[in-house]
């Protein structure tokens, strides 16, 4: 296992700095985020090279750290593969804003410390727009359109998980407390 790149806890760029919105439609499933033939790697940077490989090849080529993924309904349906949120973390995505999420993707993202926000108005954001987020207030700013959209704030338990950098950091803390 030594040759594997160490995972980072909560290594996503700050969400309050503007970044480009990559806009996707409804029902983007995990097969489309990370096609199964690329699942042999678990390394975020390597997975990032194939993010949206078949659906939108330009993404992996042009995405920059601090960019956002914006999507419609039911983002991340399908298999439980953590490779999907991991590939977005590897690509430097700050957060995913969607009208709704599939359950396992939502859970995986929280566990990995990737902020995910449910925003019913996400559909109004245009591809390429400059956006940023106020996580505490649950607000999404569209700087190009000059609009602010309300998002559902995360329940407190989940906010704590994200704040701590994800489930790994949370568990490390828990193990440290119980072994004291």
């Amino acid at each position: 296992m030594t040759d594997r790149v160490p995972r980072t806890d909560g290594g996503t760029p700050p969400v309050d700095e503007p970044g480009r919105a990559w806009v996707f439609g409804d029902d983007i499933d995990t097969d489309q985020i990370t096609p199964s033939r690329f699942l042999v790697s678990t390394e975020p940077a390597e997975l990032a090279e194939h993010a949206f490989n078949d659906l939108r090849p330009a993404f992996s080529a042009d995405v920059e750290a601090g960019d956002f993924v914006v999507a419609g309904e039911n983002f991340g349906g399908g298999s439980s593969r953590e490779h999907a949120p991991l590939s977005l973390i590897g690509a430097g995505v700050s957060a995913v804003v969607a009208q709704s999420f599939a359950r396992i993707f939502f859970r995986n993202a929280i566990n990995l410390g990737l902020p995910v926000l449910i925003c019913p108005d996400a559909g109004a954001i245009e591809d390429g727009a400059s956006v940023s987020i106020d996580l505490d207030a649950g607000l999404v700013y569209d700087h190009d359109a000059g609009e602010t959209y309300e998002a559902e704030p995360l329940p407190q338990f989940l906010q704590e998980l994200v704040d701590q950098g994800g489930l790994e950091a949370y568990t490390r803390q828990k193990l440290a407390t119980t072994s004291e």
Partner: protein
Amino acid sequence: MSSSARTITEKILSTKAGREVTAGDYVEAEIDAMVGHDVTGPLAIEVFESVTGEDGTVANPENVVFTLDHHAPADGVEAANNHNIVRDFAETYGTHQYEISDGICHQVMIEEGFVRPGDLIIGADSHSTTYGGLGAFGTGVGSTDLGTVFATGELWFRVPETIRFEVEGALPDGVYAKDLILRFIGDVGFDGATYKTAEYGGSAIADLPIHQRLVLSNMAIEMGGKAGIVEPDDRTVTYLERQSGLDVSLDPDLVSDPDADYEAVYTYRGSDLAPQVSKPSNPENAVDIDEVAGTPVDQVFVGTCTNGRYEDIRAVADVLKGEQIDSNTRLIVVPASKTVYQTCLETGVLETLVDAGATFQSAGCGPCAGYHQGVLGDDDVCLATANRNFPGREGSMQSQVYLASPATAGATALYGEITDPRGLETERYDDYAVATAEGGR
């Protein structure tokens, strides 16, 4: 403490959390058994090692199971290396580990006795909902969840709301649990049960043998469900005794209370249902078979954690006994487990299928997720007993996959086009029904 009526989901999660909880609550609960496979396992192992450091301890190694099923046998160097990561870990920490010949994680978990009514079971695989067919709360999680549970033995959950699907009366000949679940998914949509438990009940469900109940629970995830549960009964007990070698006594309270709070209840009359086919490229595209009958098919795939059990493969053999598959169609059969394989061998089902022109492969996931052993080319049209038909799921992004029951798959292989199994000689199905009546083989 609340005195209100509860769903089976609320009851199981209350027991495991050690306090009374209802839908919407967040809990940390103890896990009874967990499984990872050759794709998700290595990542979970990495998480475990990252969390615990050099000399970590697995909290309950006797509850930890690994299978090698997605790339089995290994189809490339990286897959082979992943297998070895899992083998090494299992040996070091004393967990269970099954080999490339043993079969698909969900089938192995059930056959090997890791699933009991009332258990809380997780798998780093979305079809871990399958265990609900035996009255357990089974749910799919990510590798990070799994890796941290190796270390702590517990995990966080939001207690889900429940949607109930109620089916009364008998199902017509040629209509199976697979047809029911495709209809449910078609009606509520691909995300219709997101974050929720799909609970299945009514006289038609109570009449289903366990291998068919497992199909309902397995595909709860295709409507976004967190779990899919059938309340356990005497059939469950008989099945566990015969298939898993378990001696379980049923807790009479392990059912939803009659006035439990459901988010929605959908009711069906069994006799109204026709065989269903989900058109490409979403399971929710379910239609009565009439609408697509006659569509030419290049490949028929029978297998997966949905419909790769002995009774499923037997249903295909019943149709093909003494016949030849259509010369323009390929038939790929992949048993869900080694036990299924052996039963096919012992009963002559394997011989029947090979004689009919099938390609019969070793146990595992096969081409289900497009890895190997029968992936589809650009213009291929496939009818599969699988659970998903997303674009590119079984190979090329241009290929097309229809989902249907094993009986429909057998009829389709025979004629090379989507074929209604109700049109075929029926005594074979009667034979099949008798063999499975008790919930066993």
